[in-house]
């Protein structure tokens, strides 16, 4: 039986109980006769930081790490997140980025710039776009930049456009990005099959349409086979087609967004290109564009001029999305990933991740899990509905997720996309072996069986994890919400009277 480590690990503030003087690192000191002469009016008073030796700090965080699950621990079938294995060789990349300052003279970082340049070239090739900027620190930052580009393009064309179309299956980032730039978000409902309803799109698109944000394959894992027609409708209305690269893994090496008619593409290098997710970040992004749109890309873009690599700014660039060059430390990891796979490996990514997904569908086909358009192949992910199980047993998608945790698997994405009731969104990726896929299918089958034979125990799961099911109401209630140790201390001081009004 799988069991996660359990440590009753105190807060870092509570380890040194005697409050004795300790320190975890020595500060290098120079013999310099300079006085720290900050005036009293701005001088800092005492500060309440823990005092610990290196050993205590290391043990504390190692224990915490043992109560955490990552791809190196086991399979993480999180739909839309593409939690593939992160090859260890990527860590070698730190060598060409770690110590370099972003404002260094470009003549001193020609090797690093060459890496950035090659990565740009390779990403252009796999997306079918004309130019890529690596300045965006994450996918959603790329979306924001892409929408700002769309706005700037229309402004310069003097076309009055105030609506952004978004598929109802879209990631939440799409409407959020559009509205951050000031667009009114208009949802395009999907049809019975789970695809963009092209007739509806045709009747909704107008001269007000700035663009359409879409991912293909979509979040149901279905390939939008009418993409040619979709592209035509949007472009006829003077809009631009934006590609959300979150699902690129399902087509990588098979078809390119550029060939499908997309004008702007963002990539999540931490998804498709194997960069570790870092527990929620850092990731890295790329923003690629075609034709006229390349003029608006965020800068810098690395170019080659007279045998030298330089940083350039596209003539109508929207500016910068992050303060310096983007998350280059992770761009370098993606560089290693692409080099390690090569053209042979890259062209197998979609084939293998699609194979894994459809194999799981095959293993789960005669269960109570329901599937929209069951005869359509899925790409890299699949969304099952556990509604029937919920109706018959009261066991929800959340309970199923917790049941899987107890068997040593991370859970699928649940309750997303919102158009599927009791959704379980599974993305196995190309890096899980057939044996692991079988183990996962068996674990899911067992959980479904438990829903009928032993629902109470499932409702109380997980119990093999570091803690049991957590109280979300207490965590979020205005009278109990506790976001820091400082608030804990205030609560004690005010005898629990600290309500977030």
């Amino acid at each position, binding site marked *: 039986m799988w069991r996660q480590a359990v440590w009753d690990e105190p807060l870092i503030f509570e380890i040194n109980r005697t409050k004795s003087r300790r320190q975890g*690192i020595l500060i290098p000191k120079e013999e310099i006769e300079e006085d720290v002469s*900050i005036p009293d009016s701005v001088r800092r008073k005492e500060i309440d930081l823990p005092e610990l030796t290196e050993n205590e700090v290391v043990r504390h965080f190692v224990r915490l790490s043992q109560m*955490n699950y990552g791809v190196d621990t086991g399979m993480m079938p999180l739909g839309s997140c593409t939690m593939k294995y992160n090859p260890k060789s990527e860590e070698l990349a730190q060598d060409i980025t770690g110590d370099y300052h*972003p404002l260094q003279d470009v*003549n001193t970082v020609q090797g690093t710039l060459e890496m950035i340049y090659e990565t740009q070239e390779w990403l252009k090739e796999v997306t079918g776009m004309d130019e890529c900027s690596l300045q965006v620190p994450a996918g959603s930052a790329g979306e924001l930049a892409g929408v700002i580009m769309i706005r700037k393009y229309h402004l310069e064309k003097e076309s009055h456009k105030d609506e952004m179309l978004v598929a109802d299956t879209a990631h939440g980032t799409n409407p959020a990005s559009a509205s951050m730039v000031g667009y009114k978000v208009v949802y395009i409902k999907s049809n019975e099959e789970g695809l963009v309803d092209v007739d509806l799109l045709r009747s909704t698109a107008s001269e007000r349409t700035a663009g359409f944000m879409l991912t293909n394959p979509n979040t149901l894992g279905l390939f939008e086979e009418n993409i040619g027609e979709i592209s035509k409708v949007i472009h006829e209305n003077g809009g631009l087609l934006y590609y959300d690269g979150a699902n690129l893994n399902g087509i990588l090496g098979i078809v390119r967004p550029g060939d499908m008619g997309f004008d702007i593409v963002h990539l999540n290098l931490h998804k498709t290109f194997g960069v570790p997710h870092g527990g929620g970040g850092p990731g890295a992004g790329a923003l690629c564009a075609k034709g006229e749109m390349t003029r608006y890309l965020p800068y810098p873009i690395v170019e080659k001029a007279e045998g030298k690599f330089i940083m350039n700014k596209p003539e109508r660039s929207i500016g910068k999305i992050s*303060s310096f060059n983007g998350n280059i430390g992770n761009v370098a990891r993606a560089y290693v990933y692409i080099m390690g796979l090569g053209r042979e490996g890259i062209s197998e990514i979609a084939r293998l991740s699609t194979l894994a997904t459809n194999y799981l569908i095959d293993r789960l086909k005669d269960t109570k899990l329901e599937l929209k358009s069951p005869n359509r192949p899925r790409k890299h992910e699949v969304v099952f509905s556990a509604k029937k199980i919920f109706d018959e047993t009261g066991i929800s998608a959340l309970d199923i997720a917790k049941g899987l945790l107890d068997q040593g698997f991370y859970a699928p994405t649940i309750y997303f996309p919102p158009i599927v009731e009791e959704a379980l969104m599974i993305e196995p990726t190309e890096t899980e072996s057939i044996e692991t896929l079988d183990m996962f299918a068996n674990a899911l089958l067992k959980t479904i069986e438990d829903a009928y034979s032993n629902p109470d125990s499932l409702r109380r799961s997980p119990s093999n994890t570091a803690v049991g099911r957590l109280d979300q109401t207490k965590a979020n209630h205005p009278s109990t919400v506790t976001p820091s140790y400082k608030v804990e201390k205030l609560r004690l001081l005010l005898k629990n009277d600290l309500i977030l009004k």
Partner: protein
Amino acid sequence: MTHPWLPNLSSKEDILKRMGKTEEDLFSDVPKELMIKGDLNLPTRRSEYEVKLRLKELKEKNVQLKYPPFLGGGVCPHYVPEAVKFIISRSEFYTSYTPYQPEISQGILQALYEYQSLMAEILDMEVVNSSMYDWGSSLAEAVLMAFRINGRKKVIIPELINPFHEEVLRTWTEPRGITLVKVKPNEDGSLNLDDLSRKLNEEVSAIYVEQPNFYGIIEDNLEAVVELARRMKVVTIMGVNPLSLSLVKPPGEYGVDIAVGEGQELGIPLNYGGPYMGIMAVRWDAKLVRQMPGRIVGKTKDENGKQGYTLILQTREQFARREKATSNITTNESLMAIANAVYISLLGKNGFKELGEEIYRRSHYAMRKMVKELGLSRTFQGDFFEEFEVNLKNYDKVHEALLKRGIHGGLKLSDTSSLLCVTEAHPKKAIDEMVDVMKEVI
């Protein structure tokens, strides 16, 4: 064909056979005319050893400097302790995902709660989110937050704002019709309060101040700024170098609404531009907390009454609120937040102060030496932390001479002005050597 990262590569046909399908079936929905024909123009695959050789080749094309560059401008060279590298290399942390399933992700949740708590102490503010991309984007999000709160469209910023952050701020906020109004500096480089109060009116949404400012200068009258802003119901945003807070008053003491800053200086390598770490904190006020973007971890209990941690206030986020969300941010800089937490824990109360003092001393030593021995002048005379500007007759000439000796000098502000950054990563010997080389060409 086999590949170390692709376990099913050689058994593809077997698996398809078990399913009774062909590969064509799986892609039957992709229009034929769209499919990639022929090979992609990519390099052929390389073994790990070959990759390593290629990286070595690239590294050799970079100039090997004798010391870390004397460059700041928002991020500075610092020594990153091995213990920090070791912890963030724990693969349970770095290969994990956003902790949507809290029971199996307690480790990162507690670590992020500790980051929030440690940063809350440093800033003296109650609510810290678990990271944004960097200082610039945190500032942009803070300004968008102020706009959501009061709907006003003018934002007052100092003329001596970090230009790299300013550009990010402009890119993010210009589409919303937000305009930036600049306040002049005093002779010493600090914010001119008279100019500020002249520019304050009912149209102003927020005032942004930096501590220290781009020239490294420590602002000494922020109480008055906050007081002025409060009278006009203007949101106050303070940008901080967290290391400077080892010596100077934290934002919480001034009662500002939102604090932003850069966590790179607390245990994160320069990474040629990122990943860095955007800090964002707000006062204990529901209006501010509910408008705050990003992830926040909170404390709770499990069903057996055991302490536990989980993401909180998620109804603000894009997956729940879609276009009405406080931000589109999802992937953030969690692992960097852990690096900050480990670094601050290693420093502790005394180390934090000692480090700040050592940086202050070394940067003042370098400045005085340049003034005394090279006769250089400063545009602004105010007290500074970590970074300072000096006027040179010819920046390029000095820069070239230094580079020839394997030293990278300060940032070029103009043909005759340089911004230098001196930290604990720069030994006295390096400072002396830099000044000696400068002496030869000045």
